[in-house]
């Protein structure tokens, strides 16, 4: 009975209930049928890359992963957690931060991306260097300008914390905690971050509440015409690596070439999803653009030439870019806001433990 109720109730209510309930009881007391989020495939999504069967979600493992995600113990200095740079209320991006902030106030070199629909991704990070959801956290964990920790030391710290040793043993049936347990527990949480309840999604699935206004529909049409094939499909990315004309040279960050070593990949970065894009400012791999309006202006008139500039942006008789009228920009902006998923950012199951 409670399970039915929870899955059909409107998202805002769920958040409210969660908050109210939190005041005096634990999760388990409030909602015994509380399910791990993000285990299924939304009707308008393709098949996932990281199927639930690869790491079958259980509430215990998911909660352990969530605890780890929000635990600053994972950093060398004990004050930076995954959640420090990936905040739920902005779709697990980092609000107002151009670049990631790591230990000792060190600045990273790239903008912390939104974490959403990771089950559908085969390559991670702006340059695609991480190739599996389970091993991806090793990059921020060991980056000297992010968490600056070693995997061995994280395991030492976890194994020295009786609470973790018990919790891991409960989930994996053995001790001590090893790296596979740690990474798979984290993946239980990161794989659960499915954002599929924006107004656009309701529209795409012909569900109640799925009405788009005329300008939003025009915006969708423009997006499908002019922003494809890069921001294609229901995930609004084709996961390719492209140079979108930000700079003439890429001395500071060669992007995809950092991984492949190929000169043709210099200045290419992975096309990000547009889901929740209205929440995830600032934009671009280095967070240089503050607003979506600036992003559109960049695409229409701000691009610069370089050797690896993507062919999609070539225009006959003028500089590179996407030709967009003022009205088209307004319509596009209207549509982009329909990709915001309030359920996702308010889902108490994804929030830091209380």
């Amino acid at each position: 009975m409670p399970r039915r109720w929870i899955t059909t109730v409107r998202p805002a209510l769920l958040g409210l209930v969660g908050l109210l309930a939190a005041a005096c009881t634990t999760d388990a007391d409030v909602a015994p049928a509380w399910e791990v989020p993000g285990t299924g495939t939304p009707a308008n999504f393709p098949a996932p890359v990281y199927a639930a069967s690869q790491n079958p979600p259980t509430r215990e493992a998911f909660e352990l992963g969530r605890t780890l995600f929000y635990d600053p113990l994972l950093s060398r200095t004990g004050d930076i957690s995954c959640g420090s740079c990936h905040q739920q209320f902005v779709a697990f991006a980092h609000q107002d931060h151009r670049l990631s902030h790591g230990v000792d106030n060190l600045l990273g070199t790239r903008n912390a991306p939104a974490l959403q629909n990771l089950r559908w991704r085969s390559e991670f990070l702006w340059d695609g260097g991480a190739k599996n959801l389970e091993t991806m956290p090793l990059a921020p964990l060991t980056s000297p300008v992010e968490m600056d920790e070693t995997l061995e030391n994280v395991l030492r710290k976890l194994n020295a914390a009786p609470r973790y040793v018990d919790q891991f043993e409960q989930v994996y049936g053995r001790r001590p905690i090893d790296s596979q347990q740690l990474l798979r527990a984290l993946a239980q949480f990161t794989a659960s971050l499915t954002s599929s309840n924006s107004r656009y999604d309701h529209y795409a699935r012909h569900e109640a509440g799925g009405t788009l206004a005329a300008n939003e529909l025009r915006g969708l049409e423009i997006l499908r015409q002019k922003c494809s094939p890069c921001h294609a499909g229901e995930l609004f990315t084709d996961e390719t690596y492209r140079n979108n004309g930000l700079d003439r040279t890429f001395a500071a960050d060669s992007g995809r070439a950092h991984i492949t070593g190929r000169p043709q990949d210099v200045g290419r970065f992975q096309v990000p999803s547009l889901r929740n894009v209205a929440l995830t400012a600032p934009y671009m791999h280095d967070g240089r653009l503050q607003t979506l309006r600036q992003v559109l202006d960049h695409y229409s008139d701000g691009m610069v030439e370089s050797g690896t500039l993507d062919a999609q942006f070539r225009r006959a008789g003028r500089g590179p870019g996407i030709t967009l009228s003022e009205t088209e920009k307004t319509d596009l902006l209207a549509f982009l806001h329909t990709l915001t998923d309030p359920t996702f950012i308010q889902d108490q199951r994804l929030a830091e433990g209380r």
Partner: protein
Amino acid sequence: MKTRFFSRFSLPLLAASTLLASCNKNDSAPEPGSLAIEIDHLVGNTPLKLNTGTYTNGLGQPFTVSTFNYYLSNIKLGKADGTEYAEPESYRLIKESDTSTKTFTLENVPAGDYTSLSFTIGVDSARNVAGAQTGALDPTNGMFWSWNSGYIYTKLEGSSPAAGGNQQLLFHIGGFKSPNNTIRIASPSLNGAVLQVRKDRTPAVHLAADVQKMFTGPHVIDFSKLSNTMGGSNSVLVADNQAVGMFRVDHVHAN
């Protein structure tokens, strides 16, 4: 029919049938045996000694070695008739610093006469992109790149006065994507020896892995030009060298 028979009758009968089976060769495959492998690390003809030993590469440039680790995976044993036994879950991290890793045994090898041996130097591409692994493939072994995820197949570190800057040698060989795939298969000749694997017989193959062969072969490595590689085209040069001559079968004990 047979299972029915077994389930209905009691132990004495079972025992009797086992006795019978041992006379009837066609009834079941012979019991499996095992194969021992022992690896010696050399530099040329000299046993490798970490930190203290000084060696020279093909160009006469002196060097020392502080770390020598590599993956030896997907071991296959071939018979004269062309059939092959592939060891399942065949991943081992061999480390000069840990003697116990240099001797190991393949268990449950089907009995037979094996005339060839091959293995991967490195880790197959599937495991490079698989999820979190344990055992030899556990990332805590320090053989996994986090920023460009995948395994370091061979890690050789040391120093050479010929190398520029801090004189460090840092050869981290890895990568599985074309054109910088460094996965290599080695098939060192058994030199005519036959590995007779039987239930009560564990032949032993003594392999020699020659560090120097990383720097000689198809590509002569000049430390003044290449002393630091972590994947990429320079790693391919070293991998090509490794494939050609790093491993040889020193001798085989029939046991």
